[in-house]
């Protein structure tokens, strides 16, 4: 089997559409992960009794087990159990978000811990209200330094989205699979799918490295 340019070019629009879905999944999943991770980090930092321990165990459990199984469990077990039926796409966004929130929460934790103790003490000495300490002092310092790590996890997430084809999300790899199934030619679509990933994630990782040099890492 040789490379067929014509077929490759023909399959581009379909793949590009799939790529768009992949990017949507990544962006929405990442936003969810950034937010939920922050919630996890704050719960643990503030030390809400019981809840804090629960979050800790949840985070470690999710981090140590495969996303694919978590997706299956959420889609086939949890959703029917609580009586909802989400689309594969939404299921994907939520599970990407939850899974990666366990990573981002660690990123935030490290970012917060990297802030010198003196900052907290100074804020207390000035009797600044607690909520204002977070929004006015701690987060503005912590957030820039966690950006590179968040960026890296976003890229990882991007590359992990194809596993959602297991529940029928039509991302770029699934589009390639469909193209292949129709024509029995697999070289072009799968290779192009790889190229698509490289075209996005390589420049993105260069950007993250630049950012790393600029703001440092936690």
């Amino acid at each position, binding site marked *: 089997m040789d490379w067929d340019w014509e077929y490759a070019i023909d399959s581009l629009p379909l793949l590009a559409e799939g790529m768009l879905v992949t990017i949507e999944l990544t962006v929405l999943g990442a936003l969810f992960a950034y937010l939920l991770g922050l919630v996890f980090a704050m719960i643990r930092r503030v030390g809400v009794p019981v809840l804090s321990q629960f979050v800790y165990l949840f*985070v*470690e459990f999710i981090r140590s087990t495969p996303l694919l199984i978590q997706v299956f469990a959420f889609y086939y077990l949890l959703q029917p159990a609580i009586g909802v039926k989400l689309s594969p796409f939404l299921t994907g966004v939520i599970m990407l978000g939850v899974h990666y929130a366990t990573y981002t929460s660690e990123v935030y934790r490290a970012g917060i811990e990297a802030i010198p103790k003196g900052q907290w003490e100074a804020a207390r000495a000035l009797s600044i209200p607690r909520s204002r300490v977070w929004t006015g002092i701690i987060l503005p310092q912590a957030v820039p330094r966690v950006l590179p*790590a968040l960026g890296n996890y976003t890229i990882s997430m991007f590359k992990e989205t194809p596993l959602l084809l297991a529940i029928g999300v039509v991302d770029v790899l699934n589009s390639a699979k469909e193209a292949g199934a129709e024509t029995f030619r*697999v070289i072009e679509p799968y290779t192009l799918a*790889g190229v698509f990933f*490289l075209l996005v*994630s390589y420049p993105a*990782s260069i950007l993250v490295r630049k950012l790393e040099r600029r703001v440092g890492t936690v």
Partner: protein
Amino acid sequence: MSDNLGRIISTLLEGVPVTIQATLGGIALTIVLALIAGLALLSKSRTVRFFSRVYVEGFRGTSEMVQLFWLYFVLPALVGLQIVPLFAGVLVLGLNHGAYGAEIVRGAVQSVPKAQHEGAVALNLGPVDRMRRVILPQAVVEMLPPFNNLFIQLLKSTALLYFISAQEITQKGEELRPALPMGDLTVIYAVELIIYLLLAIAITIVMRALERAGARRLGRKPPPRRKVFSSATAGGV
């Protein structure tokens, strides 16, 4: 919970050997490739550095899933040779994580103080002995914590072998699913996740033991005993 409990557990356990083989095979290949590519990234030769960069960026830049599909579905079409699923899985797991590991190796070798290199030059040790006898033994100790994370990522990635029907845990579970009532799904997924969790803990226990041994070897205080969970560095993988 149900009469099916025994059958579910025994079916899932049938997948464990494949998962373990894929993990260990993947780890072995990862170590080899990470060392080769990581040292090549530090080579004096531009050509060598270039090729190893291409490998590292190529495998980090394309999705592991795509790599798996490519190796399993495309390669046979290209060369007319069907690869055994487990073997394809080990190859992809190793190639993919080896690319990440290469950066770990590079960073660890660079973290060994330059004075160690100069001490070895002053004793007229050749380039190979300098690396093998002086630099690497010290760098390896630095590599252990990030490799622990990487191996757990690799373990989690073995679930992707579901897509090529390698008969590992995830696939066993999905084969059971359609025939079972809702209540039993809880058992399937709980057992699956617990198996992965235990395997992850096993990896961490081994790596922590190596960390302690490595620290002793370098005459450092062993790292404090941590909870088996206790996460890992923040930086991305």
